């Protein structure tokens, strides 16, 4: 992952999204530890306080929990929490696209057409989630 400073999305948000994606994808499984704050700060070249802020947010939404002497560990419901968050983010992006299309007076039917084309352009994924 690399941090994007060419956006208005705060860095802690980018880090939190990155971790959500990794938990949803099964890279970090429930019961496993996230990288330490220091390690991730050095890897991403960001202030450790910023990583702390991202982890605190993930803790607050129940994706990870802080275990004393261990670190931040992915919770049992972590995968579900991550998927929910990502689904919300996806819905937000779609809404933005729809607002944009409507402001250009594009019909609902054409918007659906745009959606279907975008869907097939981004490749077919078999199976979906569990």
């Amino acid at each position, binding site marked *: 992952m690399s941090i994007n400073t060419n*956006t208005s999305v*705060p860095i802690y948000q980018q880090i939190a999204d990155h971790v959500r994606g990794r938990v949803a994808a099964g890279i970090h499984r429930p019961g496993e530890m996230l990288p330490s704050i220091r390690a991730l700060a050095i890897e991403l070249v960001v*202030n450790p306080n910023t990583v702390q802020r991202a982890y605190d947010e993930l803790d607050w939404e129940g994706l990870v929990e802080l275990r004393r002497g261990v670190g931040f560990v992915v919770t049992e419901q972590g995968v579900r929490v991550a998927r929910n968050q990502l689904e919300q983010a996806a819905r937000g992006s779609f809404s933005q696209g729809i607002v944009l299309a409507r402001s250009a007076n594009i019909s609902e039917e054409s918007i659906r057409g745009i959606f279907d084309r975008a869907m097939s352009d981004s490749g077919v994924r078999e199976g979906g989630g569990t």
Partner: protein
Amino acid sequence: MVSEAPDTVIELKNVAKVFGSTTAVRDLSFCVPKGTAFGLIGPNGAGKTTTLKMMMGILPCTNGRMNILGLDVSSHPQTIKQRLGYVPEQNFIHRWMRVGEAINFCRSFYPTWNEPLCGEMLKRFDLGGGKKVRHLSKGMLAKLSLVLALAHDPEVLILDEPMGGLDPIAREEFLEGVMANLADQHRTVVFSSHLLGDVQRMVQTVGIIDRGELLTLSSMDNLLKETKRIRGVLRDGCQPKQPPAHTIWQRVQGREWLVTVGNFTSDLPLQLKSTNPVQDVEVIDLTLEDIFKDYIKGRRVQR
């Protein structure tokens, strides 16, 4: 302004600096809490270096008060130098020395010298003691400068455009060296740079200064969240009637009205639509660089 809290490490109150007939710093007030990183950004000649030099006690303030670690800087110059680390724009390492000699030279000034930390950083940066300082590349020199600023375990680290002229790899390695020495410690950082992406990575709070004055002071997150540009499409032949409060910069070109505001809320577009002859408004997200430029350009137009 923020009142003095118990965890305030740096406090400036109405600080000014005048050189002859030139006012370098007009009236600067801000606080930096312990363990946080503060970024100072501004165009050339804004007064950044002067401010940082006053923090280090290298330059006296003409006016105002500067407290660091609870001490008045002007009356405790030695203690301040012992407890702060400083990477200046122009490093002060003697060119004729070898790296090891430069280390020994600096070590002799500091009772709190942390030998393991020094060794670890030299290793991280692949700086051999036998190399001559004048043979070091710009990147290596900057890294040595950072080692010398950190090896006495300072409570406050002051970085003044430390990566000017460095290539992207050297910059990243330099920054990694800084980040590695922030974690698990409660070191406070003041960072000034034109490399706004690097500032964004490093700091939680940012101040934009121009001509010796603070234009805004905000957490990085709030600055990005609350500074937005709005594009209004003006009705034929109309001009904006009422620019919003906290307008930072605006421009009208034909039917297009661009206005950057510093306190964006989601109801602002509708409000703008109801008070101005615009048929459509759109909200544009800004990067730190956009925000910086709009603040500076906005000031240039006013005068």
